[in-house]
């Protein structure tokens, strides 16, 4: 067991990693999910299949990729397919059990915006856009989301529906003819959330050690619902923490290496 000497980011990554099973086939979204997925692989789920949208299937990178297409992903993959094949045979083919997404903006129903802040045609901030997310959200068996809480990120109404979670809640997915489960888990730096079985609103089911209801609400733009049986997220174990820190250290060393005389 750990002695609670960990950051909230570490807790987030480790809590998220625990959700993946050894038998899962996971489509790894850009950013935060990558660390969680690889910690799962390096701890309790050594045979989990990690897929990156660059076409790498069954990767086992020794360091976290900076992009979704680093050479390390290909070197360690079972196979690397073309991007059209990735989206046709593997994602749309219904072979992926879990899609793991980050979010720039999210609402209580797990709808995600990574497209624009403000109006689409005259945005305040032009974000990168959806990439694989719109179809990851509909084609994977279920969706896990991980992000750091803030009132800017967790909002009452998102500015753009980059990817569809539970829409307006309830059976909105079914009404659109979507047969997959959609968001079933959200892990933030403060808590673990699951959708209410009926309304599908994300509900806090577990708070990380030392976190209070007030802290969760302070960093969330909607009125937070808490489960009746509210648990405490188990603290990171020593092995989990060491695995994460070693991975981060290897990653940092690798990405600051090859220092360039001139940029870009």
């Amino acid at each position, binding site marked *: 067991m750990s002695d609670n000497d960990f950051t909230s980011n570490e807790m987030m990554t480790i809590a998220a990693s625990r959700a993946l099973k050894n038998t899962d086939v996971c489509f790894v979204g850009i950013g935060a999910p990558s660390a969680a997925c690889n910690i799962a692989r390096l701890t309790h789920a050594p045979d989990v299949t990690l897929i990156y949208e660059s076409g790498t299937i069954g990767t086992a990178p020794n360091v976290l990729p900076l992009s979704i297409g680093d050479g390390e992903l290909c070197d360690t993959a079972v196979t690397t397919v073309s991007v059209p094949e990735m989206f046709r045979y593997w994602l749309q083919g219904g072979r992926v059990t879990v899609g793991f997404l980050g979010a720039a903006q999210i609402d209580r129903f797990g709808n995600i915006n990574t497209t624009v802040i403000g109006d689409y045609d005259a945005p305040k901030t032009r974000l990168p856009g959806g990439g694989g997310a719109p179809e990851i959200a*509909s084609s994977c068996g279920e969706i896990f989301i991980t992000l750091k809480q803030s009132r800017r990120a967790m909002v009452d109404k998102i500015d753009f529906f980059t990817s569809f979670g539970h829409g307006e809640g309830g059976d909105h997915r079914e009404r659109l003819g979507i047969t997959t489960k959609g968001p079933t888990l959200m892990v933030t730096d403060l808590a673990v959330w699951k959708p209410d079985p009926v309304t599908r609103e994300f509900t806090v089911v577990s708070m990380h050690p030392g976190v209070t209801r007030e802290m969760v609400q302070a960093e969330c733009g909607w009125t937070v619902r808490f489960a009746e049986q509210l648990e405490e997220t188990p603290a990171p174990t020593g092995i989990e923490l060491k695995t994460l820190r070693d991975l981060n250290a290897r990653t940092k060393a690798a990405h600051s290496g090859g220092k360039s005389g001139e940029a870009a």
Partner: protein
Amino acid sequence: MAQFMTLPDAVAQNLKSGDTAAFEGFTHLIPHASAHEAIRQGIKDLTLVRMTPDVVYDQLIGVGAVRKLIFSYAGNPGVGLLRRLRDSVENGWPHKIEIEEHSHAAMANAYEAGAAGLPFAVLRGYKGAGLPSVNPNIRSVTCPFTGEELAAVPAIRPDVSFIHAQKADRKGNVLIEGIVGVQKEAVLAAKRSVVTVEEIVDELDAHPNACVLPGWAVTAISLVPGGAHPSYAHGYYSRDNASYIAWDKIAADRDTFLAWMKDNVLDAKPEDFADRIKHLRSAA
């Protein structure tokens, strides 16, 4: 049949202002040298296509070469946003570009349909997503057997596609290895294609099912070692992550950007790429 020529000749003969062009690469093998040559030649008014426009599209947009961008994820992977793209879209500097935005699945299918000579691609996509309401090029078709309604997007058919590859043999057959992205599709979907390569060899020595473009399916080949930098060429040199990180600062300010472009693009030449990857070869 592929013709071997210098990159300035290949760009001059195959890209003109007003063209629809794809400089494709999915993190790996991004054809930076070709895009820089296009900037040097003053090509303007381009409709640029790419799934993952990153640093080099930020540069093309920042110098005002772009009229329209068709894309699915515009970011500096692992670093952040594209500041020249933002400046164009948010503030109209140097001018406001037109945006046609898709998902990765739709773009990948659209390239695939282009390579396959079809006018459109079908996918089970965009369900509940906002893009169909802002992109009139996302439509639907109905399955004539099940009645299911599916998304449809137009095939991508660039006037010219640029890619970077590991090697070509002397007949112009091109080998692409590792993360192959949509490069094969981008070339086969385009009317013309320019391939820069790390080396030209007597024999490709390729696995029978490797990703090979026959020479007769390619328009021009130019030898440009390092031509993907700061992207990478699997087996030749590694990704220059430091340069990607540094770009975020360079692109943050218009003057810094313009100065960098002058020093590193306008006053440079294709041969300079070989130097830029020397320190990255050992890591490959």
